[in-house]
């Protein structure tokens, strides 16, 4: 029995029709084998468009559908549902990608129309061989793994936990809070960062649904959506998390006291080898830095900390621990790293004392920072003139092309704080001001009125002229070259991907974008999803963003995990390989080639067998099979061969 195929060609407004003669494509399609009806329409994905398809299915009793429109990655799921709503299996539909892979990449004219026709013809030929497929469902484990406990991870974890479901929150540092814990104030409201963040950190610690793993990293991921198995490695803290009271006695007893540069204070303050980085730290427990601890590094120390501890919480014998977790969804909130400006000597960072980074400024301005919130130069005096340089390492083809998105506003914030604290002259060097968020422009205007000088032009150089720190820049508004003597320079450096982001991406099976940040499944339709079902993104690991956007995205990721939990089950991709036993010669080529160990061998029957639960549907075994005994569903040999015939036919 031959199929009855309906072909629906979309104009996509004028997106496709301004390049491709869509009416011609539909007209041609009407003459092809098995095509019962072919038509074009302005917006196939709209309600009336979908209804048109549905009414034609009923009217002509269509058995197969081809939609020539955008990428199947865009509206494949939409049209699949269109069919399902009228009782036709969604896999009996095929899309021809004539927008992203034709109209948008071609000049208008005959060639574009020919290409669109070829792609549509290939889809028609292919769809003849489609089979109805029933998607299998699996149950969803109700626990969620959140990786990274900065503001993004914290928000996601709290949201899921507040719905009553368990969360494993894994943080590689000994404390949670991420960069936000280091900030002093947040723009544009200027409320203190700690006032927003610390209550949330405390909530994380107290929520019975959240299991916090600090000093920990994910080292293994197996399984699939709904049922992941994750392995977590926890580095020794050398301090018992249960018994330590966070009193700090060990910290002041440590022989290395005030001798180690504090990471939390960005090297501006000092700490001990056993330490608590800041008074509001969560968990409020000491940690031993094994590199700087004399006992752990050299084996020689009086161990004054052990003496000082009244609850015997310190244990130098502690070893690394591994924990296996089972979760249904994974949210990655691994954050960002800051660009190191010492890479470019033109900025003077590391060369001159009073050239600091934005995050160092945050620590200086912070009341619990190394200067108690006093804004001072290295010699302890107050600066009279301060330069703030935007876009250090970002929007710069020599370093990172992307915009870091937060620097304009944090620079404005710095200027306001400097004015408030010292009354110094402030010069901002910017390429252009990006004040796009809610109340941002208003904040910028306010600070301008405070007398801050905004100079349009990227600061090109920081030098010392006769012992005087000087910024050189081209003022592109005045068209002059300027040299401005200052006491302090703040480099607002770029937000860039974490050092280990490539390893993390491959561990979880993600892709990275050109800028190195993790790639979302679709920038608009699925901004927190990834190429891996059940793995979601939150915060700056996807791209730089400010705190409001981070919190919003983190909540979105939580909602994704919660919707899978609420449904209790997820559909698995039905693309799987299977062996046709009668054609299998038992050569076992497929057994060794499978990356998942999904192909076994039946010794009695002397044929290969594929474990459907392990198979992920890559089809590599099928290509290796010399007898064509292996078929991958929805990507069968007949289907692909027909598609090839379709694109090649003239």
């Amino acid at each position, binding site marked *: 029995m031959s199929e009855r195929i309906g072909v629906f060609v979309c104009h996509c407004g004028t997106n496709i029709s301004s390049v491709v003669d869509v009416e011609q494509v539909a007209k041609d399609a009407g003459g092809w084998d098995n095509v019962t009806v072919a038509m074009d329409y302005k917006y196939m994905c709209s309600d009336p468009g979908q209804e048109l398809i549905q009414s034609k299915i009923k009217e002509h009793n269509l058995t197969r559908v081809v939609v020539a429109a955008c*990428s*199947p*990655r*865009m509206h494949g799921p939409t049209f699949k549902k269109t069919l399902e709503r009228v009782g036709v299996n969604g896999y009996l539909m095929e899309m021809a*990608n004539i*927008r*992203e*892979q*034709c*109209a*948008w*990449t*071609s*000049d208008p004219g005959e*060639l*574009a129309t*020919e*290409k669109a026709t*070829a*792609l549509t013809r*290939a889809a028609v030929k292919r769809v003849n061989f489609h089979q109805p497929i029933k998607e299998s469902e699996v149950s969803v484990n109700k626990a969620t793994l959140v990786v990274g406990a900065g503001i993004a991870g914290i928000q996601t974890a709290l949201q899921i936990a507040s719905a009553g479901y368990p969360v494993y929150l894994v943080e590689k540092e000994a404390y949670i809070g991420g960069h936000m814990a280091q900030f002093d104030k947040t723009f544009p409201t200027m409320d203190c960062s700690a006032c927003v963040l610390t209550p949330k950190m405390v909530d994380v610690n107290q929520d019975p649904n959240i299991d916090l793993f600090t000093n920990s990293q994910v080292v293994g991921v197996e399984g699939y959506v709904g049922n992941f198995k994750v392995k977590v490695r926890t580095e020794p803290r050398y301090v018992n998390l249960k018994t330590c009271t966070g009193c700090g006695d060990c910290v002041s007893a440590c022989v290395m006291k005030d001798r180690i540069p504090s990471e939390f204070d960005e090297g501006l303050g000092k700490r001990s080898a056993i330490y608590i980085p800041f008074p509001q730290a969560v968990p409020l427990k000491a940690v031993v830095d094994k590199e700087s601890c004399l006992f752990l590094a050299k084996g020689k120390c009086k161990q004054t900390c052990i003496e000082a501890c009244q609850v015997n919480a310190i244990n130098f014998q502690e070893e690394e621990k591994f924990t296996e977790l089972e979760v249904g969804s994974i949210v990655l909130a691994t954050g960002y790293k800051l660009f190191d400006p010492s890479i470019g000597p033109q900025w003077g960072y590391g060369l001159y004392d009073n050239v600091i980074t934005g995050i160092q400024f945050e620590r200086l301005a912070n009341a619990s920072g190394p200067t108690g919130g006093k804004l001072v130069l290295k010699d302890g005096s107050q600066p009279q003139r301060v330069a703030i340089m935007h876009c250090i390492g970002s929007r710069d083809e020599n370093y990172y092309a992307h915009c870091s998105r937060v620097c304009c506003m944090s620079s404005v914030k710095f200027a306001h704080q400097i004015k408030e604290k010292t009354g110094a002259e402030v010069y901002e060097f910017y390429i252009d001001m990006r004040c796009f968020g809610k109340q941002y422009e208003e904040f910028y205007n306010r600070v301008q009125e405070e007398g801050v000088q905004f100079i349009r032009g990227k600061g090109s150089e920081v030098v010392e002229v006769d012992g005087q720190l000087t910024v050189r820049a081209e003022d592109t508004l005045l068209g002059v070259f300027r040299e401005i003597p200052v006491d302090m320079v703040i480099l607002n450096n770029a937000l860039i991907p974490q050092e280990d982001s490539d390893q993390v*991406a*491959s561990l979880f*099976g993600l*892709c*990275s*974008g*050109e800028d190195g940040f993790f*790639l979302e499944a679709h920038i608009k339709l699925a901004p927190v999803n990834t*190429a891996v079902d059940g793995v979601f993104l939150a915060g700056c690991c996807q791209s730089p963003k400010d705190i409001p956007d981070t919190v919003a995205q983190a909540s979105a990721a939580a909602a994704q995990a919660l919707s899978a939990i609420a449904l209790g089950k997820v559909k698995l991709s039905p*693309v799987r390989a299977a062996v046709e036993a009668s054609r299998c010669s038992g050569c076992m080529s497929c057994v060794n*080639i499978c*990356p*998942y160990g999904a192909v076994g061998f039946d010794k009695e029957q002397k044929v290969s067998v594929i474990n459907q639960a392990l198979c*992920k*549907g*890559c*089809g*590599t075994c*099928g*290509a*290796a099979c010399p007898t064509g005994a292996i078929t*991958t569903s929805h*990507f069968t*040999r007949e289907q*692909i*061969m027909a*598609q*090839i*015939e379709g*694109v*090649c*036919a*003239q």
Partner: protein
Amino acid sequence: MSKKKDFEPLIVGFLCNWCSYTGADLAGTARIKYPTSIKIVRVMCTGMVDPSYVVKAFKEGADGVLISGCHPGECHYVEGNVKTMRREPLLANLLEQLGIERERFKLMWASASEGEKFAKAVQEMTDILKPMGPLNLGGGKKIG
């Protein structure tokens, strides 16, 4: 019009769903223009591309075949692309024996963010194939 149309090569592209197909979509979203010569067939992974698919494409009249997948180490299925990489020299050899010049078959890697790289590759391959003219297999004899 009396002037005969310029020869436009036909390239069949096998692109894996996760990297290169997404990258090709990106080229579209970014409105990067490249020749219409390429007609893309989506596969889940380059590892899925049976050598007979390539032969079939040439048999059906393709002047070139391009396989594009994830960079080594980034395959969505761990190492399907590595399998393809191993297959490539063998297949290229076989094709040459059939009289299909080496330039007509290309394997490349393009990630989901490398729309521009993909577009460039299509342009280059088209530029190479144009002067070569249509594939002429054994004086019109059928293969396969």
